[in-house]
């Protein structure tokens, strides 16, 4: 196999992992914009997506097409409950409390998942078979196409929601200036709730489409959540294309790193990028610097 094909293979693998990171990253930034916090429990919604789908498939014997939307719905309900119980009482608290409460939430959700579903690893069935598809010498699974397709669809939907619907515009207004948004009659608390639901749903969907390839267990949320956050940081916490590009860049770099340099330090790549971006370009890879106002 020649080097070009190898490179293409790295690229394709990286893009599919990156797409997952991107979806999780967008979830982070939606919440960040709505209320200015980083939700450390975001990764747990990714886990919930996969585990709930599995539960619906195995215990309730639902067909896959019904289990997936139901799982997404349940995950977004979990997001709603989480916002109600943990975030809303702390709206005025310092960032430290919010960091800790979301960490507490993530431990709680993870613990509940372990108690309910055990600590085994599981695999979701692929959406449409496991026969590899060859692209110029490199190979893909049908599931990869699902990942790309759903990611693109979600990004378009996301864009449309935030630019063309009243709720989306209201949420954007809240992120720019919550006080002003409140003054013009937007229910800021409701928008925060929506933000949590949407981001939980995005996370869950990411978890579901990835699970046939990556397996799922009660503790997959930690690492995926952190990688998703790296994607969001590279994208400058934007809830749009920049984060998607961030996720893809991260996925491809990891894949290239694992293939060409050393797989042991693959995870370090993500966090080194995270640190570099935070220190050198806190506005993200593509953002314009903002002048700090007191």
């Amino acid at each position, binding site marked *: 196999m020649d080097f070009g094909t190898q490179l293409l293979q790295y690229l394709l693998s990286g893009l599919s992992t990156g797409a997952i990171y991107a979806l999780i990253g967008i979830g982070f930034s939606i919440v960040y914009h709505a209320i200015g916090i980083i939700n450390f429990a975001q990764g747990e919604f990714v886990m919930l997506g996969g585990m709930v789908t599995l539960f619906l498939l195995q215990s309730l014997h639902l067909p896959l097409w019904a289990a997936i939307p139901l799982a997404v719905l349940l995950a977004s309900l979990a997001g709603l409950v989480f916002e109600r119980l943990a975030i809303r009482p702390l709206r005025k608290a310092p960032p430290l409390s919010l960091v800790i409460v979301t960490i507490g939430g993530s431990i709680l959700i993870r613990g509940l998942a372990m108690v309910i579903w055990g600590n085994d690893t599981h695999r979701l069935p692929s959406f449409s078979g496991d026969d590899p598809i060859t692209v110029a010498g490199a190979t893909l699974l049908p599931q990869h196409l699902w990942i790309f397709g759903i990611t693109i669809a979600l990004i378009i939907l996301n864009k449309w929601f935030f630019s063309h619907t009243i709720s989306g515009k209201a949420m954007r207004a809240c992120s720019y200036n919550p006080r002003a948004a409140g003054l013009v009659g937007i229910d800021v608390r409701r928008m925060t709730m929506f933000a949590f639901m949407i981001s939980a749903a995005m996370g869950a969907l990411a978890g579901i489409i990835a699970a046939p390839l990556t397996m799922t267990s009660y503790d997959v949320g930690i690492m995926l959540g952190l990688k998703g956050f790296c994607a969001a940081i590279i994208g400058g916490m934007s809830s749009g294309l920049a984060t998607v590009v961030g996720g893809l860049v991260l996925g491809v770099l990891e894949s290239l790193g694992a293939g060409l340099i050393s797989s042991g330090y693959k995870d370090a790549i993500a966090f080194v990028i995270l640190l570099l971006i935070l220190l050198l370009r806190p506005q993200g890879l593509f953002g314009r610097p*903002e*002048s700090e*106002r*007191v």
Partner: protein
Amino acid sequence: MLELQGVTQIFGGVTALKEVSFSIRADEITGVIGPNGAGKTTLFNIVTGIYRQTAGRVMLEGRDISTVPTDRLARLGMVRTFQNIELFGQMTVLENVMVGLHSRSSSGLFACLFKMPWAVAEERRIRGEALEWLRFAGIEELAPVTAANLPFGKGRLLEIARAMACHPRLLLMDEPAAGLNSQETLELSALIRTIRSRGVTVVLVEHDMDLVMSICDRIVVLNLGQKLAEGTPREIQDNPEVIAAYLGDE
């Protein structure tokens, strides 16, 4: 004492200050006035190094302080207060003032950790001096109160006491009378005069015209980021441009 030379500040395309130049003489009380959005607070933020100006220079006693970090300015003798008082809410009133003495004390990490005799002696000096400054501002009976629980007017006095504890030669006050009732304002103006009488140069940004006109020696008027006029209170009151700016604004 303090000299601004062509100070310009641009925030993402919006010009907040445009080539503002004026100087402040030692031992005077100078008022900086202007309608809302004239750029007064921005000016203070630039002078105290919280913002870095887009262009121009700020000189303190003949020295360019444009690039001097905020915390060094206190050692150079310049301190400010804030429009929405910025107290250390979880600390007591006395501790707040003791922080004011930070720049005039020197015990290092090692001495503080191990309570070296010189650090203990210094601590005693800091405490004594801080109490004096509380007495100066007339709030010594509030010393053990947590600062966050102070009424607004007392908070203002605490902020002034804290700033004075730095032994500034130049004190910048950002709307010191905002939120005070007329009795408190009266006390404040007396306090400002006392401060000046101790040889401290004072610069006020203020909306309360009565206060400004009664205690300031000189006044600088800003409008829409530019200097409109400069002079004694009388000259300013008679300046047609100033009147137009204020009337036009309201």
